[in-house]
C-alpha cells in the first residue's frame, strides 16, 4: 500500500512588542507569577481592550515577508470557552477576516531542491495564561503573566509531504520571524509553538485522510520525531483496516509515541462573533508601503544577492542566509577579507560553524569576530602565512583573547619563512636526504614533487612560504 503523507503546520509566534496586545502590561518572560497581569489581563468587570498598534505592524511585516495579501480591513472576534487560564472566558482572536491572507514560503530541502509551501493565513490573537498542574497539592496554579501576550497564528496549507519538509518549513518560519525582528522564536521558552496536522491518503487520491493534530511540539528535533511517530502509528492503523479518528494528540518523547489526549476533546463550539469592544483594523496602502520600506533584506533576496554578487552556489548561499546573524557575520567577514567571498564562505561554514558546534556555542557567542576572521583570510591571500599555519592561528583565535591574526602570528612566532636563502637551505637538506626520490623524480616521476614539498614544509615546521617553496624547489630539482 503506497501512502502519501499530508502535513500542515499551525505555528503560534509570540510577537516581541514591549507591551501586551490589548493592555499595557510588560511581556517579559520568566517574571514572578501574576506580576505582569493588569486589570485588563485579569478580565476584571468593566475593563476594555485597547489594540497595540505595533502588533499590527509586526503582522503586516510578516505578511510582506511571505508575499501575502494584507487585509485592508480585519476584524477581531471573540473565541468563547471556559478555562481558568482564560480570564475573560473568551480569547480575542481573528476569525473570518484575518489581517494576513494567502502567501507562501520557500523551503530548502537539500542542495538541489527547494519547495514552495503555501500559507493560508495569519492572524493576531491574545495568548492565554499558563496552567501549572504539578506543585500545588492536587490543585492547579494559574499564572496570568502570559495572558494577553500578542500571538501571530500562522496557518500553512497542507503542502508538506514528510517530517523533513515540516522541519524545513518550521525552520524557515523561525528564520523569517527573526529576520523581521518580530519574535525571538525561542521554542524552549514558548515564543514559537508548532501544532502539526498529519494525515495519510493513498497515493494518487485527491481526498484528504482524517488528520490528527500533534499539539505543542517545542523543538525542531521533536517535530521530526513526533511526526514520524504519528505517521508510523497512522500507517499501522490504516493498514490494519482501522480508521483514524480526528483528535488532538501529544508527543511523548520518552516513549517516542503520539497519544490522543486523555480528556475527550469535545468539539468545542467557540461561538465566534466580532468583538464589539474593538474597531475594525484598517490598513492602508500607505501604511503597507511605509512598513515595506523599513523591512530588512529578507532571506530570499539576500540569497539571490549572495549568489549573484559573491558567486556562491545556491546551497552555500542558502545555508548562509538561513539565520540573519549568520548572514550578517558572513558579509562582515567578506568585507574584512577584502571581498574574498568564497574563502569567507568556506571558513565560516566549515571551520567556524564546525568549531562552534563542537563547543556547543551559538554564533552570537563566537570567540572569533568577523573582523578577526577576515583578517586571517587576508594574511593567507597576501602569502604571509599558508593554509596550515592559518588553521593554527584560527585555533588560537578560538581561545577567545580577541587577538588579530597579525598579533597571533607575531606572538607565537608563526611568521613564515620567506628568506630565500633559508628556504634554499632547507631544500638542499631535503634533497640531500632523499637521493632515491631525487633520482626517481628526475627520471620522470613528476608526482614526487609533492613529496619534496611536504618534506620542506615539515622541516620548516610549516612556516615556509608555499609559493616560494614551489619556485625554488622546481629550480633545485631541475638540477
Amino acid at each position: 500500500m503506497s501512502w502519501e503523507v499530508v502535513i500542515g503546520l499551525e505555528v503560534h509566534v509570540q510577537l516581541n512588542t514591549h507591551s501586551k496586545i490589548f493592555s499595557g502590561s510588560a511581556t517579559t518572560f520568566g517574571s514572578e507569577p501574576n506580576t505582569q497581569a493588569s486589570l485588563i489581563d485579569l478580565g476584571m468587570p468593566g475593563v476594555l481592550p485597547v489594540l497595540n498598534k505595533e502588533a499590527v505592524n509586526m503582522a503586516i511585516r510578516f505578511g510582506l515577508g511571505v508575499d501575502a495579501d494584507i487585509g485592508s480591513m480585519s476584524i477581531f472576534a471573540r473565541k468563547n470557552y471556559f478555562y481558568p487560564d482564560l480570564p475573560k472566558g473568551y480569547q480575542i482572536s481573528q476569525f473570518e477576516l484575518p489581517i494576513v491572507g494567502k502567501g507562501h514560503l520557500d523551503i530548502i530541502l537539500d542542495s538541489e531542491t527547494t519547495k514552495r509551501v503555501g500559507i493560508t493565513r495569519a492572524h493576531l490573537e491574545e495568548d492565554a495564561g499558563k496552567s501549572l498542574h504539578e506543585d500545588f497539592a492536587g490543585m492547579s496554579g494559574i499564572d496570568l503573566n502570559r495572558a494577553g501576550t500578542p500571538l501571530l497564528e500562522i496557518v500553512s496549507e497542507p503542502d508538506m509531504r514528510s517530517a523533513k519538509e515540516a522541519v524545513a518549513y518550521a525552520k524557515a518560519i523561525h528564520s523569517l520571524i527573526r529576520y523581521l525582528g518580530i519574535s525571538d522564536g525561542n521554542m524552549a521558552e514558548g515564543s514559537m509553538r508548532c501544532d502539526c496536522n498529519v494525515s495519510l491518503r493513498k497515493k494518487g487520491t485527491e481526498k484528504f485522510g482524517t488528520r490528527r493534530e500533534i499539539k505543542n511540539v517545542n523543538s525542531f528535533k521533536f517535530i521530526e520525531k513526533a511526526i514520524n511517530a504519528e505517521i508510523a502509528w497512522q500507517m499501522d492503523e490504516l493498514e490494519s483496516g482501522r480508521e483514524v479518528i480526528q483528535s488532538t494528540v501529544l508527543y511523548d518523547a520518552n516513549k517516542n509515541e503520539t497519544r490522543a489526549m486523555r480528556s475527550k476533546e469535545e468539539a468545542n463550539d467557540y461561538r465566534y462573533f466580532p468583538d464589539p469592544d474593538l474597531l475594525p483594523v484598517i490598513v492602508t496602502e500607505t501604511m503597507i508601503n511605509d512598513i515595506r520600506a523599513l523591512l530588512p533584506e529578507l532571506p530570499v533576496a539576500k540569497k539571490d544577492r549572495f549568489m549573484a554578487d559573491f558567486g556562491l552556489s545556491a546551497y552555500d548561499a542558502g545555508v548562509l542566509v538561513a539565520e540573519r546573524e549568520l548572514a550578517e557575520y558572513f558579509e562582515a567577514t567578506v568585507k574584512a577579507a577584502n571581498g574574498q567571498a568564497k574563502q569567507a564562505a568556506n571558513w565560516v561554514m566549515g571551520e567556524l560553524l564546525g568549531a562552534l558546534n563542537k563547543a556547543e556555542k551559538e554564533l552570537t557567542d563566537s570567540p572569533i569576530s568577523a573582523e578577526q576572521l577576515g583578517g586571517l583570510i587576508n594574511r593567507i591571500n597576501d602569502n604571509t602565512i599558508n593554509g596550515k599555519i592559518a588553521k593554527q592561528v584560527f585555533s588560537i583565535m578560538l581561545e577567545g583573547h580577541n587577538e588579530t591574526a597579525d598579533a597571533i602570528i607575531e606572538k607565537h612566532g608563526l611568521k613564515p619563512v620567506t628568506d630565500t636563502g633559508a628556504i634554499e637551505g632547507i631544500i638542499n637538506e631535503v634533497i640531500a636526504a632523499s637521493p632515491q626520490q631525487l633520482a626517481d623524480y628526475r627520471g620522470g616521476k613528476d608526482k614526487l614533487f609533492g613529496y619534496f614539498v611536504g618534506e620542506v614544509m615539515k622541516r620548516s615546521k610549516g612556516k615556509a612560504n608555499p609559493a616560494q617553496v614551489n619556485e625554488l624547489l622546481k629550480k633545485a630539482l631541475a638540477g
Partner: protein
Amino acid sequence: MLHTYTLAALRDGLARGDFSSRELTQHFLNRIQQYDSELNSFITVCADNALAQAQIADLARANGSAHALAGIPLAQKDIFCTQGVKTSCGSKMLDNFISPYNAHVISQCESAGLVMLGKTNMDEFAMGSSNESSFYGAVKNPWDLTKVPGGSSGGSAAAVAARLAPAATGTDTGGSIRQPAALCNLTGLKPTYGRVSRWGMIAYASSLDQAGPMTQTAEDAALLLNVMAGHDAKDSTSIDKDVPDYTVTLNNDLKGLRIGIPKQYFGEGLDADVATVIQQSLKELEKLGAILVEVDLPNTGLSVPAYYVIAPAEASSNLSRFDGARFGYRCDNPKDLTDLYKRSRGEGFGSEVKRRIMIGTYALSAGYYDAYYLQAQKVRRLVQQDFVKAFEQCDVIAGPTSPSVAFGFGEKNTDPVAMYLSDIYTIATNLAGLPAMSIPAGFSKNLPVGLQLVGNYWQEAQLLNVAHRYQQVTAWHSQLPFQFA
C-alpha cells in the same frame, strides 16, 4: 427645601455661600436614612466618604479653586466600578466585590468635585425593565409604592424622584435610563453611542450600552452630561470628538424645528391615556414653533426581536468572566472545575440573567449563528436606516417613552416577553446608536408619563434644547410625590 433644588440652583447656592457642601450632603444622607428603607433605592450608602468629599469641596470653594459643580451630591448606579467601594451590579455574583479601580464616569465626576452619596439599586447586570430582578430586592416607585420604578436604572430613578439625591447616573442598553425616567417623572438622557466612555462600566451588551444623566431638568442633564462626556483612550469605542458645552444652546428658538412623529408609534399596545398625554405635549411643542411631520419607521416591530438576540448574545460572552475563579461569588467546596463553574454561576446569577445567557449562547451557537445573530445584526442595520431616512425629513423624532405608566410588582415579571415589549419605543435607538431622552410630559392615573425625544447622531445639544424650552412652558418636571416633598 434643599432637596427640591436642581443642580443649577445648588451650584448657584453653593457659589453664593447660602449653604455648604457639608450641609447639603448631610441633608441628603439624612433623607436617605429616613426614606430609603421603604424605597430600597440604594445598595450602598457612602456616608463617611461623601462627607469627606464634601469637606474637600468646601475647602476648595473657600480658596477659589472649586469646579462649578463641586460639592453637589450625586448618586451613582451600582454598575460603575468604584475604587474601594462595593460594586455589585445588583447581583449576588458581585456581592463581595470591592472594585480595585474607578470607572471613567466615576473619575470624571470626582474630578468635577461631585460628592458620591452611594451606589444605587438596579436590575441584575442591567437586565430588566422594572428593577425587580435585583439581588438586593425590588425598588419602589416613589409615586406609588405598589408600582415599579422601571429598570434597569430603577434605583437611580427612585432616588432622584424622591429627592434622596438631586441627580444620578444611569446606563441605557434598551431603555434603562429613559424608561425609569418616564415612570418616575425624571429627565433621563442616553447619549449617542461612544459619547461617554464605558471603561469601568460593567458590560451587559457592549455595542448598545451607554451611560447618561438622570436629573430633574434638561438644564441639569446638560450640566451632568458636560461632566460625563468625552473621549477616553481606554475605551476603543469612545469617540474622539470635542464635547460642546451643552448648556449654551439650551435656549435656542424652536421655531421651524421639524418634529417627526413615527406613524408606527401610536398603534396597538399603547395605553390610550398615555397617548393622550403625549398628543398634548406635542401640541405644546407646536406652540413653541415646532412643526410636526409624520415619519415612517417601518422596521419598528423588528427592533425588539433583534435586540433580544443581540443583547443576550453579547451578554452571554461578557458574563463568562464571572466564574468563581478570581473574584466574586464562589460556591462552597467545589469538587472540580466543572462543579466550580456550574455552581458558582448557577447560584450567583438570578433567573433573568441566566435566561439571557442561555438565549445568547444559543443565538451564537454553531448552526444558529446565521439564522439568529447574523440575521439580527442585518435587521439592526435596517432599523438604523429607517432613522437615517426619517432624519432627512425632520430634526427630532418624538413619541411616548413607554407604552404604559408604571405597572405593579409581579405584573410582568412572570412573562418575560411581556416585560420585553415594554421597551418597544426605546430599544430601536440603542440599536441605531442614536441619542435620546425622556422628559416628564404629564400624568395618567396619577402616574408620570414620559415624552421621548430622539436626535440624530451627536445632537445631544439639540435634544436638550427642545427639552429645556418645553420645560420652560410646562411644570410637570418640577412635581414630586407629596410624601417626599
